């Protein structure tokens, strides 16, 4: 009996450690997916600084992998067990959470002392603003998709960065003839291949064609622009522009970048967060051989070639309504994007979505990214983040089948249109 009693006591002390301590501690949990390179330290350091200034608050920062996170957060919300601070990419999925009353309205916090207006690039807030209210804080990065290329390989075969699609095809052919894979692609992840499609549609017809199809304002996913983009992709696949077996390779475990590091592939179309990965995984390649090329113009296309696909903000942090200490949580988020954090992020190859960031950046590749975004007439948010989740999944599945040559460009267009029409009950 005495043994049992002691066991119970020990258990109680283990479980209720906080209860036993003399001082009441406020605790905040934060989930994030910055798990490569310097990502975990960036957030942990900000949390440590916050805790040093606020000894009565304890912050637990939990890093996770990208794709598993998407499921975990939903399960946690469904169970009423969401962390205080969680991330999203803004757009459709965040709006689902907002409609389900799972996100705290941050408008008053953001507008206090004109904080948002003075701190953030205006474009960064549009992905988290719904019905005139702000639901997230843009933090991580200005991420736009660009073509990363190996300058040494281009030099070796006397190639110039392509400015048009035809030039890109010619460059690809030269590389293929010399036994180099033009583009590395890891497409088990599916959103990786979507980048080609989004850019081609934008270059062929401009951003309106997607917006009017997705928002059901008269457009359709069977618009010729979508079919043409699909056709151009399949031509690229057929000529051998991608590494074999791409549909079975996982971006999250670095199987795409391995080809670049081994000099087996010359280019990769990817979000600019890839700079941080290059920097931390292979500094020699980053320093000597890495260059970037904006996505080329398409002959006869009406889209503005300065347009970019991506996001100004990347990961937005939101606060859950079940959070006991929303004031503290928001204050913590301000630490996460204060000047010291911004400097650390730039150091690790990121472009935080704050005003005046261009003046702080000296690193040439990052500067190019910032200029691209500043000169862009439109920033097309990733389709799978813009669309409601159900349709985002359909889009990604369609992309994998399109790149795998399992369906025709027409079928890809029809399948997406049918899913969108059904979703909106047309």
């Amino acid at each position: 009996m005495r043994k049992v009693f002691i066991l119970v006591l020990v258990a109680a002390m283990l479980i209720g450690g906080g209860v036993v301590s003399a001082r009441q501690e406020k605790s905040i949990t934060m989930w994030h997916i910055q798990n490569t390179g310097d990502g975990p330290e960036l957030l942990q350091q900000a949390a440590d600084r916050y805790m040093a200034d606020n000894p009565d608050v304890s912050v637990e920062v939990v890093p996770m992998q990208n794709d598993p996170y998407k499921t975990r957060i939903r399960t946690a919300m469904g169970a009423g067990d969401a962390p205080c601070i969680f991330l999203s990419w803004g757009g459709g999925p965040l709006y689902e959470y907002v409609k389900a009353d799972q996100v705290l309205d941050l408008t008053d916090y953001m507008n206090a002392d004109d904080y948002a207006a003075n701190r953030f690039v205006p474009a960064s807030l549009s992905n988290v603003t719904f019905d005139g209210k702000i639901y997230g804080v843009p933090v991580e990065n200005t991420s736009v998709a660009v073509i990363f290329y190996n300058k040494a390989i281009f030099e070796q075969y006397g190639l110039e960065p392509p400015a048009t699609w035809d030039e890109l095809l010619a460059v690809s052919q030269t590389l293929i003839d010399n036994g180099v894979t033009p583009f590395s692609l890891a497409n088990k992840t599916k959103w990786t291949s979507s980048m080609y499609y989004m850019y081609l549609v934008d270059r062929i017809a401009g951003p309106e064609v997607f917006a009017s199809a997705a928002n059901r304002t008269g457009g359709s996913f069977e618009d010729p622009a979508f079919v043409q983009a699909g056709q151009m992709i399949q031509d690229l696949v057929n000529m051998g522009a991608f590494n074999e077996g791409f549909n079975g390779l996982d971006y999250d475990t670095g199987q795409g970048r391995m080809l670049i590091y081994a000099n087996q592939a010359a280019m990769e179309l990817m979000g600019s967060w890839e700079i941080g990965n290059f920097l931390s995984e292979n500094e020699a390649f980053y320093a000597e051989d890495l260059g970037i090329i904006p996505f080329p113009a398409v002959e006869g296309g009406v889209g503005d070639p300065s347009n970019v696909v991506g996001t100004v903000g990347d990961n937005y942090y939101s606060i859950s309504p079940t959070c006991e200490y929303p004031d503290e949580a928001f204050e913590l988020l301000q630490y996460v994007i204060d000047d010291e954090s911004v400097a650390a992020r730039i150091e690790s190859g990121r472009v935080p979505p704050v005003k005046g960031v261009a003046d702080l950046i000296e690193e040439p590749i990052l500067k190019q990214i910032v200029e691209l975004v500043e000169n862009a007439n439109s920033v097309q948010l990733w389709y799978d983040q813009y669309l409601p989740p159900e349709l985002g999944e359909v889009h990604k599945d369609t992309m994998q089948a399109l790149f795998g040559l399992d369906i025709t460009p027409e079928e890809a267009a029809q399948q997406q249109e049918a899913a969108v029409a059904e979703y909106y009950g047309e």
Partner: protein
Amino acid sequence: MAARETTWTIILFLLPTLVFLSIFVIWPIVSSFRLSFFEWDGINPVKDPVGLDNWSRLIHDGIFWKAFRNNLTVVTLSLAVQMPIGMGLAILLEQGEKLFIFKIFKTVYFFPMLMSSVAIGILFKYVYDPIFGIINPALEAVGLEAWTRSWLGDTGVALYAVIAVICWQYIPFYMILFLAALRGIPEDLRDAALMDGATEPRYYRSIALPLVQGTLRTAMILSLIGSLKYFDLIWVMTEGGPSNASELMATYMYKKAFPSFEMGYGSAVASAMFIIVMVIALVMQSLTSRFETEV
């Protein structure tokens, strides 16, 4: 009096397990069935009743039936590969028990059982990598370029590539199970058989195998149900891709319930899986028991 006391004792002893089962197994099954009649995204407080919509969608859902067929492929190949190899290894280990080297073999064979599925999945993602993996370069080294494939990226091969890993993972389990059953046969039966002039192979065929029939049957049913519910390795290695080529019922259920926010339809898939697994397991059970009484 005594009988009644026994009954009460039985009930009393079963009670904790029953309570536990009801809360963690039976109730979730019932609520999944209930959810399958609603449209729900999994986070909204409101659930829309939609009657049989999810079920009629399921009946006409080509991808679900493709996943079902893939499950049957996993079942067939698992039974055809795991049982014979598991039994063969068990016999081999029993034969060589006296030799020290076999102790090492046993440990080595058992090793895959000790690894987590996710670790195995990630490991084999790299093994199957068409360029940096082990398999393609090995094939090229021995002049079999024609046999190289992009294993996980090829719609015709991906499912079989994953099944090979599933077999690699589970054979040790059946090996240990069969080894224990073979050891359970009284030594004097073997001695008597050998005395009567039976060879070792003959002993296994005519005496050992019939005696471990019960274990074999249990193993087959375990393998069958496991294959019908299979999820983890496929999810880690291919996520059911490319283009649903390696989709199983469980991966499809997960995709619908979680990434696409269709909890109602996901529950319909889960309930259909429950019915299918139940029916197939019962049929299998009755078939094998009939077979046993005939022996």
